[in-house]
């Protein structure tokens, strides 16, 4: 399996608090992605990164920010968590575009009360 570690694996927090999720990879892949998975919506892209300090928005980026200061780490931050951000968050990596598949971590289950 691709060397992807997400932390924490589970988190419960309160509305209005900041939350940061971490994705760490050992594959030295250029691309990293953050998705959320919700019943009835499948997986939806939040943000992605195509290199150190290079990031862009996905389809559901409102309320989220990201940072990538090192190739191996991609952070997702909820500046002020809301109950609608309760979800399972997955990080993915890929070596490139084209025929390079994305490989996913095992997710972070985030509950915002």
């Amino acid at each position, binding site marked *: 399996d691709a060397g*992807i570690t997400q932390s924490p694996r589970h988190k419960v927090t309160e509305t209005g608090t900041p939350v940061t999720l971490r994705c760490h990879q050992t594959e030295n892949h250029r*691309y990293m*992605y953050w998705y959320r998975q919700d019943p009835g919506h*499948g*997986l939806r892209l939040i943000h*992605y990164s*195509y290199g150190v300090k290079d990031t862009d928005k996905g389809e559901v980026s409102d309320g989220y920010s990201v940072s990538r200061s090192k190739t191996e780490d991609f952070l997702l931050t909820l500046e002020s968590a809301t109950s609608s951000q309760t979800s399972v968050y997955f990080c*993915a990596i890929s070596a490139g575009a084209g025929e390079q598949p994305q490989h*996913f971590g095992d*997710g972070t289950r985030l509950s915002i009360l």
Partner: protein
Amino acid sequence: LAKTTQPISMDSYEGQEVNITCSHNNIATNDYITWYQQFPSQGPRFIIQGYKTKVTNEVASLFIPADRKSSTLSLPRVSLSDTAVYYCLVVTALSGGYNKLIFGAGTRLAVHP
């Protein structure tokens, strides 16, 4: 971006071959087809991908007819551990170099003893 349609659920028995067909009528010339498997509490796992004709790896085969408007994932001799959700995706490489993945509802495969 091409949308996919696949059965919501399927049932099978251990040792049988399972074929899951996915339709993608408006697939574009440069798109290719990718299949993922997802177990509960885990991230999607890449199974196989292809552009046309037949692709085979150690776990599955992918059949794509000449018109590319559908594809069939074939799982030989399934076991109980193949019980999972299977996603068919049409992948488009976008400017910026990343691949946009659109996950639908997937096919929930249940393998029975």
